[in-house]
């Protein structure tokens, strides 16, 4: 890669404008093709049989009756997905999660699957599969699972990260620690100390579109997969490895995506669909029901967090400490580790220590959820920060401003910060009219800060200039939030042409080099960098073609506002050549004109947000309504401000649902009680106020336009901002998310009873 990613401070013509998104009309007219909208000739219907037990040994599976049912073309179990992971523990966990091998580890764990000519026969076939289970004791609560008396989920797990290897296995897979300074000394210097424990329940990303795919494995070893995903290249790698296919022979095409938020970074049903197709010799379509989505895909961790913060009378924080326990489902994860890194990242702390424990439970395998792990840690820390400000008699915003991290601060997770935006977001909140608006009875206001890392990754982009001068842009990062519009703006900016002449598509895995998935807020950050690089490579060719046309040295040809310009008095009579003119002549000057780029887009800037929330709580029912909400966040540079605002609003909306209602509820039998949108309450439009936004632009020094990721940070502050608002409204500190009506009433009762 020969590309300089440094921020250049240029003026923009296209970037920062708000054109209509290219996929908008298809989406509002129903033409857009999502995962379940693709069909192949002769395709079968796939269905999955799932364990009804939270924890059970699979003693035997008899599929013979199902196989004999007319219309059934294939039945598979774990035997049809042999272990090809070659010692890769993480891939083995993915394989075992897709199809249980020895034990069913949670309610909903796949144990077998069928492919039949229609859904009715497929369902009948599932009923004919006989599974003999030996039911084992189970544990679904994170604190109970971490206890040494808890039923063991995997007796081969010995806690990593301890000074000495433990003698006994445990459900705690790993301990991690971050921080600097001496917290004991810091707490000794404090005049006020707040110490509290918090819990958050498990939630689902709640994407509207269930997981869906069509798989077709051919007799010659080639295969196609059409799928709804955040990363089709990663799905190709994982599916190829699990199925024993060559990656280049598996072509994966990503559909439009009806929400992912991290839950579609992981294969669930796709290897099963491919295995069914391989066995049946026909394409197989597999679409999860909503019940399956809840029971067997993507929830975030449930957590239990202890926080202690001390401060001097003048408001200086002297020490901060947190112990974080995060559930990871029945497989090892690193979710508490991320919580431990992000917990105190907003603050300038001389003495800080965080310890994370990863805990196995009999629940679905935890998957990333938008700034994974950070919202729960922020809830605990920002609640304690608010309480400490009250004890000090300081305004909550002023207390945070006094202790906010800034350029040169050592982050709680280790390194020293470069230019960051936490201070500016707090100043913007302090002066925002929302903070001065009057409140009525039973209403409360809260605010909170949030941090997320953002990252880049491997990225490949092709930019092709047609003979008519229009531009095709092929990218490999799935468009989850309007990135095709943003990347078209970037291409138009670099080339100096109008946005309307650029058409961006998401290319399939056989048409473009490898791309990491759209996660970590990297889609626009990474692909814009690759698009700038590809456009600059194309401009180099455009200049060469103009030089050839004029018969002058290429060094004398410059590119300005979509034209090649011959620089120098001696070329005074040469009129500029437009991109369109050069493209029209390309057949006679060397053939097609294209720019290609493959790079690792590292150096994504960290991001901060501060949110303000007003709520009204009904003291009789405990019901809470968010009546006003404001998001202030640093975007680096907002390429398409409307979609940046959309990300801010979307994160806040999801956070409101998480804070007030969303919750996985398990019965004593270890079965999920609310696997549907009737009982798992996500917010709908009528539940939400207009979510106001304010974009700050503190340029990322490691991107030519200053872009930072924006997709995830907006879900970090809401749990805390809403908890602070509710606590202020009812006069009781809320420590358990979600703050559903029963929980608020219980907190009020407990307060009354003393």
């Amino acid at each position, binding site marked *: 890669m020969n590309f300089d990613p440094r921020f250049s401070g240029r003026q923009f013509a296209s970037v920062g404008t708000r054109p209509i998104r290219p996929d908008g009309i298809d989406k509002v007219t129903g033409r857009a093709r999502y995962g379940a909208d693709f069909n192949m000739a002769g395709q079968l219907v796939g269905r999955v049989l799932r364990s009804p037990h939270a924890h059970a040994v699979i003693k035997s599976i008899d599929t013979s009756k199902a196989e004999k049912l007319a219309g059934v073309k294939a039945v598979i179990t774990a035997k049809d997905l042999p272990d090809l992971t070659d010692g890769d523990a*993480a891939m083995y966990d993915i394989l075992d999660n897709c199809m249980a091998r020895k034990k069913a580890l949670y309610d909903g764990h796949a144990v077998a699957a069928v492919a039949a000519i229609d859904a009715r026969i497929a369902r009948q076939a599932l009923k004919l599969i006989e599974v003999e289970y030996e039911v084992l004791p189970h544990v679904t609560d994170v604190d109970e699972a971490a206890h040494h008396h808890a039923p063991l989920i995997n007796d081969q797990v010995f806690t*990593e*990260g301890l*000074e000495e290897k433990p003698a006994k296995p445990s459900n705690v897979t*790993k*301990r*991690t*620690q*971050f*921080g600097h300074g001496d917290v004991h000394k810091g707490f000794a210097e404090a005049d006020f100390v707040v110490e509290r424990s918090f819990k958050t329940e498990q939630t689902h*990303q709640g994407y509207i579109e269930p997981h869906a795919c069509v798989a077709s494995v051919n007799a010659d070893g080639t295969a196609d997969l059409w799928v709804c995903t955040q990363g089709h290249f990663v799905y190709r790698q994982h599916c190829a490895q699990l199925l024993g296919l060559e990656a280049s022979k598996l072509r994966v095409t990503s559909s439009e995506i009806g929400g992912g*938020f*991290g*839950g579609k*970074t992981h294969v669930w049903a796709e290897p099963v669909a491919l295995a069914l197709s391989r066995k049946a010799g026909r394409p197989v379509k597999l679409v999860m029901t909503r019940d399956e989505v809840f029971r067997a895909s993507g929830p975030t961790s449930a957590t239990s967090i202890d926080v202690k913060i001390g401060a001097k009378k003048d408001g200086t924080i002297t020490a901060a400490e947190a112990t974080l326990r995060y559930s990871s489902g029945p497989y090892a994860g*690193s979710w508490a*580790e*991320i919580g431990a*890194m992000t917990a105190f990242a907003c603050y300038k702390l001389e003495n800080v220590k965080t310890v994370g424990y990863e805990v196995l439970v009999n629940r679905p395998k935890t*998957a*990333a*959820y*938008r*700034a*994974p792990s950070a919202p729960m840690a922020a809830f605990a820390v920002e609640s304690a920060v608010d309480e400490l400000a009250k004890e000090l008699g300081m305004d909550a915003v002023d207390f945070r401003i006094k202790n906010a991290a800034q350029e040169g601060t050592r*982050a709680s*997770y*280790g*390194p*020293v*910060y*470069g230019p960051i935006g936490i201070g500016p977001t707090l100043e913007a909140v302090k002066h925002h009219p929302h903070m001065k608006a009057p409140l009525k009875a039973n209403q409360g206001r809260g605010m909170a800060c949030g941090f997320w*890392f*953002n*990252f*880049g*990754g*491997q990225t490949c982009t092709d930019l092709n200039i047609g003979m008519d001068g229009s531009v095709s842009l092929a990218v490999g990062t799935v468009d989850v939030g309007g990135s095709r519009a943003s990347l078209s703006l970037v291409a138009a900016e670099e080339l100096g042409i109008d946005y309307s002449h650029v058409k961006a598509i998401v290319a399939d895995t056989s048409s473009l080099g490898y791309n990491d998935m759209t*996660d*970590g*807020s*990297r889609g626009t950050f990474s692909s814009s960098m690759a698009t700038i690089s590809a456009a600059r490579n194309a401009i180099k060719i455009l200049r060469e073609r103009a030089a050839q046309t004029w018969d002058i040295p290429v060094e004398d040809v410059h590119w300005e506002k979509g034209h090649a310009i011959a620089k120098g008095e001696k070329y005074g009579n040469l009129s500029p050549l437009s991109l369109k003119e050069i493209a029209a002549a390309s057949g006679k000057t060397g053939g097609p004109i294209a720019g290609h780029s493959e790079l*690792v887009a*590292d*150096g*994504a*800037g*960290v991001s901060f947000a501060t949110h303000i929330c007003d709520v009204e709580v009904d003291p009789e029912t405990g019901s809470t309504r968010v009546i006003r909400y404001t998001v202030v966040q640093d975007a680096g540079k907002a390429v398409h401000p409307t979609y940046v605002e959309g990300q801010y609003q979307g994160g806040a909306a999801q956070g409101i649902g998480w804070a007030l209602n969303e919750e996985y509820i398990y019965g004593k039998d270890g079965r999920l009680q609310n696997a549907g949108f009737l009982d798992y309450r996500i917010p709908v439009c009528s539940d939400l106020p207009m979510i106001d936004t304010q974009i700050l632009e503190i340029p990322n*020094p*490691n991107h030519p336009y200053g872009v930072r990721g924006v997709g*995830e940070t907006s879900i970090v502050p809401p749990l805390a901002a809403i908890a602070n608002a509710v606590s202020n409204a009812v006069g009781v500190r809320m420590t358990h998310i979600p703050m559903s009506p029963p929980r608020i009433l219980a907190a009020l009762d407990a307060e009354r009873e003393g």
Partner: protein
Amino acid sequence: MVEVTLWGSLSAVAGGKARHEIEAKDIRELFRKLAEQYPGIEPWIDRGIAVAIDGTIYRDTWSKELPEGAEIFLLPRLAGG
């Protein structure tokens, strides 16, 4: 020669020390020399380690040069959503 700081858990497999002086020109050489000195670090490198150079986090650019006097901090490689 650069000074490298390891996060808490990683220092446990590097002789219990958080700070290390290493002669390395780029991230690739840093990882190689750390693994030579402390073989227990190798599985961690395989699983993914990010390198913060003066506060900027690099996850994959192993050719990134380590400037003399820069603050170098090793971090776990993160997941996103």
